[in-house]
């Protein structure tokens, strides 16, 4: 390996390279996570199938798959890519800065994230294998090594990995916040920032709060496991008929509170950047300004604020005080207000831009519409699950799996795809292939709905999550087998469709159409090229802003050209 390449990748503090490295890490993580989910899907309908290198998957193996799939996807894909990856790549240029506020710190967080990823994957290869208590890792089972095969070393590795990840994320958030506040170029007032930057601002605040809390929870749980404390372990815990070494009166609920105080903002950490991107892209591809810029900023702030107050809706059936449940139901329904406001704003943009829109719709716009579709479809089940009474039935069923895979996983992924297709020229100087991109979009859309929509019905029929198989001694669920078989086929179809994306990535980095400076005719600064003394004179979305002005005016353009 030549010195230049080593410098380029291993000793860099350049925000663009670091952003790309984050995205590559996420690509690896999403590939591993997808394979794990396919193994789960295959196991649930063909439990006796012998897998190469593994044989018949034992029940605890299935749980290990569940745990690692969730952890990889939530932390290393939906947190790493939209926040650290794209923010490193785009944010400094969007606010007219040459680099992040602390370039070295940015590199440090990247390397810590990589270490954390390696530690997590190492859990597969230690005796006992990966942890089996789900990505939420509720105690007491996560606090006691005897609770299962993966709960010894595997669980420790999980905790260490997440601890490192928390630290790296907090460092990255500090960097983002400082960059946004102190590195904006002349004229870039707060209300001239692109909505993506607003999203990253709120996201960074959430990361600062949420991941610090998770770090504390991880420290307490590690202490329970190795220092004989009992923060989370109740007395009289019996495993395999053996009383676990005496524990004082610990409270598993404490972990739930700490974990979900992190876990729910985490959802918004994953989805807020997607919202900002959606506003920007809808403006760009309908060639009209964002509908209600201040309103969009306000709803972003409101979602961030309420996002910190709703964690209890994950705990309705955990034995929490029912009055607290009611309060959390109220805040949860309150957060539906700004979210719906955003959706209505986007729909208004689509309506207003139906004549002026780019024709035919390019791939990033298609994926943005896909995001919108999933956000609505998944969002509609949110207020249902926010009712403690309904949640008592639906909690821990496939209904919840359907809900969060539509609103968080698919909406998040589609927005990530939109971002990759849209910002690909910033990474490589080339555009991605449109033909492959459109096939990728339509097949993914069909596959995703076919995979996750039927899960609602499985959940309504009462099928619990985390069950390794539907047949066996309890056969009540075996009537759902045909439904699940269909879901598995759809999942295989959906995963196969992603190969088109990989092909497109490889092909386009080599042969893609050369993009030029501003391929989307966008107004924000990342497309302005590399002029150093950048100055901003106007708001971020001036597409046909005045009746007789040009089609678009970049933020750094001094005078609007008259047509």
């Amino acid at each position: 390996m030549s010195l230049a390449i080593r410098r380029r990748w291993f000793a860099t503090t350049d925000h663009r390279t670091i952003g790309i490295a984050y995205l590559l890490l996420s690509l690896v993580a999403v590939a591993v996570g997808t394979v794990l989910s396919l193994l789960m899907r295959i196991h649930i309908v063909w439990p006796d199938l012998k897998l190469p290198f593994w044989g018949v998957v034992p029940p605890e193996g299935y749980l290990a798959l569940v745990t690692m799939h969730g952890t990889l996807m939530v932390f290393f894909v939906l947190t790493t890519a939209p926040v650290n990856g794209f923010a490193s790549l785009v944010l400094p240029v969007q606010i007219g800065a040459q680099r992040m506020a602390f370039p070295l710190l940015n590199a440090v967080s990247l390397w810590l994230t990589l270490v954390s990823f390696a530690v997590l994957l190492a859990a597969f290869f230690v005796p006992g294998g990966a942890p089996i208590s789900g990505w939420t890792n509720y105690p007491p089972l996560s606090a006691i090594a005897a609770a299962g095969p993966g709960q010894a070393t595997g669980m420790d590795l999980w905790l260490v990995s997440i601890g490192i990840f928390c630290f790296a994320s907090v460092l990255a958030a500090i960097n983002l916040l400082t960059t946004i506040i102190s590195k904006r170029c002349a004229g870039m007032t707060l209300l001239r920032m692109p909505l993506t930057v607003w999203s990253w601002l709120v996201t960074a605040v959430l990361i600062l709060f949420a991941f610090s809390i998770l770090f504390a929870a991880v420290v307490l749980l590690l202490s329970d496991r190795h220092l004989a404390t009992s923060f989370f372990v109740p007395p009289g815990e019996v495993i395999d008929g053996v009383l676990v070494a005496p524990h004082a009166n610990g409270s598993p609920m404490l972990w739930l509170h700490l974990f979900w105080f992190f876990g729910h903002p985490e959802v918004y950490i994953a989805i807020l950047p997607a919202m900002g991107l959606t506003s920007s892209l809808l403006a760009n591809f309908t060639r009209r300004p964002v509908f209600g810029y201040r309103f969009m900023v306000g709803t972003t702030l409101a979602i961030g604020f309420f996002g910190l107050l709703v964690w209890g809706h994950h705990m309705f059936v955990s034995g929490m005080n029912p009055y607290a449940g009611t309060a959390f139901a109220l805040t949860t329904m309150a957060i539906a207000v700004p979210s719906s406001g955003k959706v209505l704003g986007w729909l208004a943009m689509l309506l207003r831009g139906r004549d002026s829109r780019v024709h035919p719709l390019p791939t990033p716009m298609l994926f943005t519409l896909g995001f919108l579709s999933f956000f609505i479809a998944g969002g509609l089940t949110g207020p249902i699950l926010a009712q403690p009474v309904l949640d008592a039935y639906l909690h821990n069923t496939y209904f919840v799996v359907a809900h969060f895979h539509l609103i968080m996983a698919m909406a998040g992924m589609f927005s990530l795809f939109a971002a990759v297709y849209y910002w690909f020229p910033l990474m490589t100087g080339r555009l991605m292939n449109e033909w492959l991109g459109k096939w990728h979009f339509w097949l993914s859309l069909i596959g995703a709905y076919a995979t996750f929509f039927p899960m609602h019905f499985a959940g309504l029929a009462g099928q619990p999550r985390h069950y390794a198989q539907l047949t066996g001694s309890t056969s009540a669920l075996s009537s759902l087998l045909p439904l699940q078989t269909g879901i598995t086929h759809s999942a295989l179809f959906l995963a196969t469709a992603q190969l088109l994306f990989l092909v497109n990535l490889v092909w386009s980095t080599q042969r893609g159409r050369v993009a030029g400076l501003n391929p989307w005719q966008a107004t924000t600064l990342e497309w302005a090229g590399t002029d150093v003394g950048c100055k901003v004179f106007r708001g971020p979305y001036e597409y046909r802003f005045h009746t007789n002005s040009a089609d678009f005016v970049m933020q750094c353009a001094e005078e609007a050209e008259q047509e």
Partner: protein
Amino acid sequence: MPATFTRTPAEIDRKDTGIGGKPPVDRRPTGGGGGDDNWDNHPQGRRGPRELLTRYRLGLFFALAGDLMFFIALVSAFFVRQNAGHFDPRDNYVSDWHPLAVPPILWINTAILLLSSLTVEVARQHLFHEVDVMEEWLGLGRPAVRRALPWLAGTVALGTLFLAGQWIAWQQLASQGLFFGTNENSHFFYLITATHGIHLVLGIFALMTALCALFLLRRVEMRQIVVDCTAWYWHTMGIFWIFLFVLLTCFQ
């Protein structure tokens, strides 16, 4: 990655010769000094006397906000755990929370930590004393460094003394038979003092780095930044300790 994409020359204007520029005092030019007084023409980071300082402070304060959340999590765990008693069938309130009497030496430690906050503040003030700073910037010796040095060294000594005092407090508890794993309350006492202690160890490392930096860094501004950020970190740890101490003493 293809080599087609030309990257911006990101690393060029980072080099700093250590001379020239504006003196790092908080005073904008009064005008009349020639055409070079438009701060916007300077590269980022040199626009105004305190731009870098402000940025580093901002980063530090965000970090400390995250840290505050960490301690808030510990403190809320403390209260949750304290109220985790229950009623038995005869309506007696059963709780295994044994209040812990903090060793009296903690009062002395607290006083020492407050004193160290004072010394580090004096050191910080010396580095911003305008006459001295101008002298350093003009290359006429290093009066600010000379004056700040003993105060920083004193802070290191007091900080170490505080940590030693905490260690003695642990020894005293241990001699009463209260170890980390003994009961609920001792978990929290040891955990809170230990995490705070780790923060202070980091703080002492930062102070020692600042001591070295006073000699090694050539730019007056960078010396100010190192000492300023270390001082704010140290103050915050002092404030955190007051809260934690009140918690451990009064809320048992």
